[in-house]
């Protein structure tokens, strides 16, 4: 992953590692909610809910807009989807390692390794194929 993608991943993982924030995400993915409507759903202060919303916003998972005195929030489906791209990147990390192993195995001169310890009962090792 690029550093930027890593930073984004960190922000997303952090944002979603909290039960209340996941619950907020569930609501705002279903439709736009005002912060005060969200706050009414939880047994915590308006300020606390507003803080959770801010964490989700910084992680790019929801967007906020203001109409009059209300702050309206909605989930960013594309941001949630982009997580699929991160999983794809993770797969690419593995594929990269496998390609490098393949290269290393194909390299002619590899450092000598300790000879295998022969089992006492094993037949003598024959080198020819």
């Amino acid at each position, binding site marked *: 992953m690029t550093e930027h993608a890593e930073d984004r991943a960190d922000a997303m*993982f952090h944002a979603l590692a909290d039960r209340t924030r996941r619950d907020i995400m*569930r609501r705002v*993915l279903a439709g736009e909610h005002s912060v005060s409507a969200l706050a009414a759903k939880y047994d915590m202060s308006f300020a606390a809910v507003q803080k959770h919303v801010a964490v989700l916003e910084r992680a790019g998972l929801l967007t906020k807009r203001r109409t009059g005195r209300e702050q309206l929030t909605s*989930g960013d489906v594309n941001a949630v*989807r982009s*997580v699929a791209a991160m999983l794809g990147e993770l797969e690419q990390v593995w*594929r990269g390692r496998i390609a490098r*192993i*393949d290269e290393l*195995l194909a390299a002619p001169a590899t450092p000598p390794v300790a000879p295998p310890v022969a089992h006492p009962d094993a037949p003598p090792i024959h080198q020819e194929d």
Partner: protein
Amino acid sequence: MPVTDVQHDLDTRTLTITADFAAPVDRVWQVYADPRQLEKVWGPPSHPATVIDHDLSPGGRVTYFMTGPEGEKYAGYWNVTAVDAPTSFSFEDGFADLDFNPNPDLPVSINVYSFTAHEAGTRAVFTGTYDTAEALQQVLDMGMVEGASSAIAQIDDLLAA
């Protein structure tokens, strides 16, 4: 490309990659048993790895850092949980600070690598299970779905679990 199969298992939250290498099992094992070979394959060319501690035995620890193009360093560690040389080993892979103290805020994956003789070479199966409580998992689950309604269903499942 030696990769022959990739599985994303949502139920067990596991990524499984199968690859066939044109080398005997003992040779593939050495890639992991030798820190100098391991560091050649672990980091991408842009972020080469340096392996510091390397104890590939049950209870052992492997520590490494990767160095980015600007000299920035990212450290990680393995806690080796099981070893059956030369056919398999298991470890937890996590992030650490530059003194190799584990960072508990970032995901830890549970990994099992296994190597079996296959045709003239080795079939390697790499599995990584991303189970850090909910953090990474939650994200992976959501990443697998298409559209908001499925995303909501996934979150609902998680909340109901």
